[in-house]
């Protein structure tokens, strides 16, 4: 087996009792103790995630923005410098190579933050499709660490170290020092809570991590693993590549039309997505909750409530939801056979038995407080 990569926080995390797993070529923490407790810590106080496995790709040069805007579905001209934007990188067929956060530094500098599990296909796709313009592509993933500080207390915890990022609005980023470590800080996250995503060079990662953990001690800050990261994002209906998105799924099917700028002049996949929109979608992503005791999981068939031979779709993600106490999931559903209306009864086939569920409105969880910026 290939040797797993380690993030600069590997030792610090293991010292805190993390159960480690192999993920995307890295040795990563899945949980420190209880996934449910880590999940609740993020919902009620704050959690700190080592997500240094995420990839950081840079596009630099006079045509960086122009090149990036051809590679991604959302419109980078609809935002300004200092903004970040969610987007999907598509094939010519309109299916997803990966989803990503784009950081717009300026016309000549763009940061793309993408999924570690997709790194090889991302690099191959970008190198094959980068427009022949004045732009350089650089992968700085291995030298860059990322921490996510998430939860209602995130702002007050970071404020103990520096007041510089309190006023940072949601989906904006800036640079500055935290505990002496030069950092890129964005007001963003993958949990549905207020919080920050913080990038720094590997060399500063440990000092940053320990400074944040100390600052958050009195506020109930907990280290959080990938297990709770998944349940948190699912409650907030944020897609996970490999589940809700893949090389055979388009962002329109995934209900990410808000991140697909079909009105911008051109981008890779636009023609196919326009055609799909005009023809009408045959399947769409819906949220559902179980109405019978059972936990839905990735890959389970969605069937008619009384007939398992009538397949209506497939579950992409599912889990017991710690916040709502329900067993929730996302699934692709045949639009013509079932529709996507909340309340619609569906069946989930689990170990040969049909368990009842119903389509519900999403997200399953909405942050109940406003983001504090002063």
């Amino acid at each position, binding site marked *: 087996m290939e040797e797993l990569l380690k993030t600069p926080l590997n030792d610090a995390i293991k010292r805190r009792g993390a*159960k480690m797993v192999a993920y995307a070529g890295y040795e990563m923490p*899945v*949980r420190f103790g*209880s*996934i*449910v407790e880590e999940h609740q810590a993020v919902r009620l106080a704050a959690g700190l995630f080592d997500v240094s496995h995420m990839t950081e790709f840079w596009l630099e040069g006079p045509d960086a923005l122009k090149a990036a805007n051809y590679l991604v579905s959302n419109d980078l001209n609809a935002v300004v410098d200092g903004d970040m934007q969610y987007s999907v990188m598509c094939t010519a067929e309109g299916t997803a190579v990966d989803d990503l956060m784009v950081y717009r530094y300026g016309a000549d500098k763009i940061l793309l933050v993408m999924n570690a599990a997709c790194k090889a296909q991302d690099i191959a796709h970008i190198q094959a499709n980068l427009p022949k313009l004045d732009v350089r592509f650089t992968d700085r993933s291995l030298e860059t660490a990322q921490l996510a500080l998430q939860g209602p207390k995130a702002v007050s915890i970071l404020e103990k170290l520096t007041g510089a990022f309190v006023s940072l609005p949601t989906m904006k980023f800036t640079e500055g020092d935290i505990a002496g470590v030069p950092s890129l800080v964005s007001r963003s996250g993958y949990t549905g809570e207020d919080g920050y995503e913080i990038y720094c060079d590997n060399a500063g990662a440990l000092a940053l991590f320990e400074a944040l953990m100390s600052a958050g001690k009195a506020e109930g800050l907990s280290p959080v693993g990938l*297990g709770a990261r*998944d*349940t948190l994002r699912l409650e907030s209906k944020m897609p996970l590549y490999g589940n809700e998105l893949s090389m055979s799924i388009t962002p329109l099917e995934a209900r990410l039309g808000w991140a697909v700028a079909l009105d911008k002049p051109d981008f890779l996949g636009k023609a196919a997505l326009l055609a799909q929109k005009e023809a009408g979608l045959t399947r769409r992503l819906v949220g559902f909750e179980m109405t019978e*005791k*059972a*936990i839905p*999981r990735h890959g389970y068939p969605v069937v008619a409530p009384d007939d398992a031979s009538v397949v209506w779709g497939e579950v992409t993600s599912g*889990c*017991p939801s*710690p916040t709502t106490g329900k067993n929730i999931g996302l699934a692709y559903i045949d639009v013509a056979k079932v529709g996507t209306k909340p309340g619609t009864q569906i069946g989930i086939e689990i*170990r040969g038995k049909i368990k009842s569920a119903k389509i519900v409105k999403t997200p399953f969880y909405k942050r109940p407080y406003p983001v504090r910026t002063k």
Partner: protein
Amino acid sequence: MKLPDNLKYTKSHEWVLIEGETATMGITQFAVEQLGDITLVECPQVGDSVKANDTMGTIESVKAVSDLYCPIDGTVLSVNEALEDEPEKVNDDCYGDGWIAKITLGDDATDEDLMDATAYEEYLDSLD
């Protein structure tokens, strides 16, 4: 961790307490620690016959689905109904309130293939 020495153990990390014609079974602390928060326990019906080493149910944690293996031949006498609403009892007290099922031993039931606490402890050490 201290293993109760009145119990017998399987390599798949179930425990069984044999008292006369009845065996009570559950999963070990090691299994609990591997699984994390247990969120659902699915057992056979009372009256079902079960066979040693066969799958007899499912244990789900937040993240994963695992098989529950039968430690000994017999017939399901009762299942711990409290786990339906409080599966976390398995996390809190796996050798006590978190028991999973009681089995009436079959005629050919044998505990020969099961480990005692010492043997199971050695087995656990060998896994590290």
